[in-house]
C-alpha cells in the first residue's frame, strides 16, 4: 500500500464537536512487530466511531490502549484533554464490552451490572437505581436473577452492554461485540446498539472487521491496515471516495485498473485506462499529470447491455466469463479486450440476462469513476475483495 498518510475527509460529523478521545501520534511496538504506527485522530462527543480493518491491522491494540490494557510506545492518549496514557484501566473513565463478553459466571445479571458502581463504592440506593435503569435500557429487567450461563448469546451481549454503561463512562469501547452472534441476531443487535447509543448519548468506539457492520452503524469510520490508519470519514465518503486502493478493496467490492493521468482541468482529471481515455470528475487523488494511479468503479455502477447507447456513459465491449446468482443481484465477470476483468452487479431480473460466452456492452456513467493514488496489487487487475 503506497498511502502512508491517512486522509482525513471531514473531521467532524458527529453531533458534538468536543473531542472526547484524542489519539495523538500513538505508536505501539511489541517485541517482534509494530501493531500501530503513528495513529493520529480524535473522536468527538456522542459519536459512533468505528475502527475497521482486517485482523492484525491494529484496531484492537488501539482500543486496548484507550482502555488502558496496553501502554503506547510513543505518543499520548487524552481523555477529555487529560493525558491518560499511563493511567491503569481501573482509573480511566472508559468502559469496555469485551469480545466474548467476559461476564462474571459466578454472579447473576444484577450483580454483574452492579459490579462497576460497587467498585466505585457508590451508596447502595444509587447502585440499585443505576442497575435498574440500565437493565431497563437493555430490556433485561426480568432476567436480573439469572446467571450468565442461563442466557442466550444476545442476552449475554446486552448484559455486557449494561454492565459497561452503568458507570456512565466518557466513552464505551466495543471490541467486536457482535462477532459471536449469528447473522440474524447480529443484524438485530446492530439496530439495538444504535438505539442504546442514541438513548444514553455516550460516545461509542466500535472495533470490527465487518465492513457492512461498520457502514450500517457508524457516524465515522477509521479504516486501518497493518498498523496504519488509511482513511477516516463517514461511511458514505469512505465508500464513494476511498483514499487508497486498500480501502477501495476492503469496503465493498471494486473494479480496479492501473490509470495514467494525461490531463487535469479543475477538478476533472483525464486518465488513460486500458488503452482508452476517460474523465474522472471531482478527483481527490492529488495525482499529477504523468503519474500513475488506480481507476475504480464499483460493481453495482457497472451496467451490462442495458441502455448501452446512453451518451453519458463510457462503454466497452466485454465477454461474459462467469455468472453467479446472489439473490437480489447477479454477479457478472466479463473480460475486456485488453484481458482485464470487470465485475458487475446487475439487479436480478427474471429474464433477458446474458449468459457466459455472450459478448455484451459494459458501461458506467462518469460520476461512477474514482481515481485513487497508488497502483493495485499486481497479481490481478480486479481486487474485488469479498468480505464475508
Amino acid at each position, binding site marked *: 500500500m503506497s498511502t502512508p498518510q491517512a486522509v482525513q475527509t471531514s473531521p467532524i460529523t458527529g453531533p458534538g464537536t468536543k473531542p472526547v478521545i484524542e489519539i495523538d501520534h500513538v505508536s505501539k511496538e511489541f517485541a517482534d512487530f509494530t501493531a500501530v504506527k503513528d495513529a493520529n485522530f480524535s473522536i468527538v462527543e456522542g459519536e459512533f466511531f468505528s475502527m475497521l480493518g482486517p485482523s492484525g491491522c491494529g484496531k484492537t491494540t488501539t482500543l486496548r490502549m484507550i*482502555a*488502558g*490494557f496496553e501502554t503506547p510506545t510513543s505518543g499520548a492518549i487524552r481523555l477529555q484533554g487529560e493525558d491518560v496514557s499511563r493511567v*491503569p*484501566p*481501573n*482509573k480511566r473513565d472508559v*468502559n*469496555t464490552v*469485551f*469480545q*466474548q463478553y*467476559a*461476564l*462474571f*459466571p*459466578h454472579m447473576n445479571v444484577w450483580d454483574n451490572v452492579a*459490579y*462497576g458502581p460497587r*467498585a*466505585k463504592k457508590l451508596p447502595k440506593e444509587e447502585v440499585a437505581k443505576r442497575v435498574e435503569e440500565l437493565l431497563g435500557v437493555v430490556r433485561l429487567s426480568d432476567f436480573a436473577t439469572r*446467571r450468565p*450461563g*442461563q442466557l442466550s448469546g444476545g442476552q449475554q451481549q446486552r448484559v455486557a452492554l449494561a*454492565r*459497561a454503561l452503568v*458507570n456512565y463512562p466518557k466513552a464505551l469501547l466495543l471490541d467486536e461485540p457482535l462477532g459471536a452472534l449469528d447473522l440474524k441476531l447480529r443484524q438485530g443487535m446492530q439496530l439495538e446498539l444504535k438505539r442504546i447509543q442514541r438513548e444514553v448519548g455516550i460516545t461509542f468506539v466500535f472495533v470490527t472487521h465487518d465492513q457492512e457492520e461498520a457502514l450500517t452503524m457508524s457516524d465515522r469510520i477509521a479504516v486501518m491496515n497493518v498498523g496504519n490508519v488509511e482513511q477516516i470519514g463517514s461511511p458514505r465518503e469512505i465508500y464513494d471516495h476511498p483514499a487508497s486502493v486498500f480501502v477501495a478493496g476492503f469496503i465493498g467490492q471494486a473494479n480496479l485498473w492501473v490509470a495514467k493521468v494525461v490531463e487535469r482541468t479543475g477538478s476533472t482529471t483525464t486518465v488513460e485506462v486500458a488503452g482508452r481515455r476517460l474523465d474522472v470528475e471531482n478527483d481527490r487523488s492529488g495525482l499529477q499529470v504523468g503519474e500513475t494511479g488506480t481507476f475504480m468503479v464499483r460493481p453495482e455502477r457497472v451496467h451490462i447491455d442495458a441502455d448501452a447507447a446512453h451518451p453519458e456513459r463510457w462503454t466497452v465491449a466485454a465477454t461474459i466469463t462467469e455468472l453467479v446468482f446472489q439473490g437480489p443481484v447477479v454477479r457478472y465477470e466479463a473480460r475486456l479486450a485488453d484481458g482485464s476483468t470487470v465485475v458487475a452487479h446487475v439487479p436480478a431480473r427474471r429474464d433477458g440476462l446474458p449468459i457466459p460466452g455472450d459478448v455484451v456492452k459494459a458501461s458506467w456513467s462518469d460520476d461512477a469513476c474514482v481515481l485513487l493514488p497508488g497502483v493495485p496489487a499486481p497479481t490481478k487487475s480486479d481486487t474485488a475483495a469479498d468480505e464475508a
Partner: protein
Amino acid sequence: MTATTTPSPTASPRPERRPLTSRILGLWAWLVYLWLFAPIIVIIAFSFNKPVGKFNTAWKQFTFDNWLHPFNKPEYRDALVTSLQVAAVAVVIATIIGGLMALALSKYDFKGKGLVNIVVVLPLTTPEIVMGSSLFTLFFARNIGFGFTTIVIAHVLFCISFVAMTVQARMRGFDWALEDAALDLGSSPWRTFRTVTFPLILPGIAAAALLSFALSIDDYIITSFVAGDRTKTFPMQIFNANKVEIPPQVQVLATMILMFTLGLMAIGAWRTIRRTATT
C-alpha cells in the same frame, strides 16, 4: 437401546432387554468396584469387631464397644492428634504458596517458567525413600531438632508441588478477560482478585487442599525419617506397633478419617451440583 425407542410399525414388539455384552460390562464394573473398595469395607467392618487377643484380624463378634471408646488407646489418640495438627499446618502453608505459584504459572510468561514447571513436579516424582533420607541428612547436618516442625516442613514440601499442579490444571482455560473486565469497571487489582479470580478458582484450591490433607495424613516414609524419637504420627504409630498389636481403635480412627474426608468431598460435590443446577 436407541433402536427400541423408535419402533417401526412392521417390527414385532419384543420386551426391552439389555444385550449380553452390556450385562457383562455391568458385571465387570461391579467387580472393579469390589476390588477398589474391599480394603475400605474390611476396615469399616473390623471397626465393629470384638477381637480375641491383641490383633483385630479375625472376625469374632459384632460390637459397638470400639466406637463407644475410640480414644481408649492414648498412644493412638495422641498420634492421630499429631497427624491432624501436622496436616492442618502443612495444608494451609502449602495451599497458600502452591496456589500463588499456580496463579503465577498460569497467568504470566516469564523467564525460566519451563524450569519452574519441572522443579515443581520433582518432589512428586522423587522416590519417597530418597526424599526422606535426603531431608534427614539435611536436617541432621543443619542440626535442626527433629519433631513437629521438621515433619511440617517435609509435608509442606510435597504438598506444595501437589497444590501447584492441581490448581494449575484447574486454571487452564481460565478466562483472564474476566480480570480485565473487572479492572475496566474500576475495580482495584486486589478487589478484582478477591471478588472475581479467587471465587472462580476456589473449587480448584479447595480440591487441592483436600487432596494434600489426605497426602499429609497418609504419609509414612518421609515422616518416619524426619519425625525424630519423640513425635509420632498416626501412620507411624500403627506401623511401629503392628508387630505387637492391632487394636480395633486403629480401624475406628481410620474409619473416622475416611468419613471426615468423604464428608468434605460430599460438601464439595453438593455445592457443585447446586451451582450447575442454577447456572
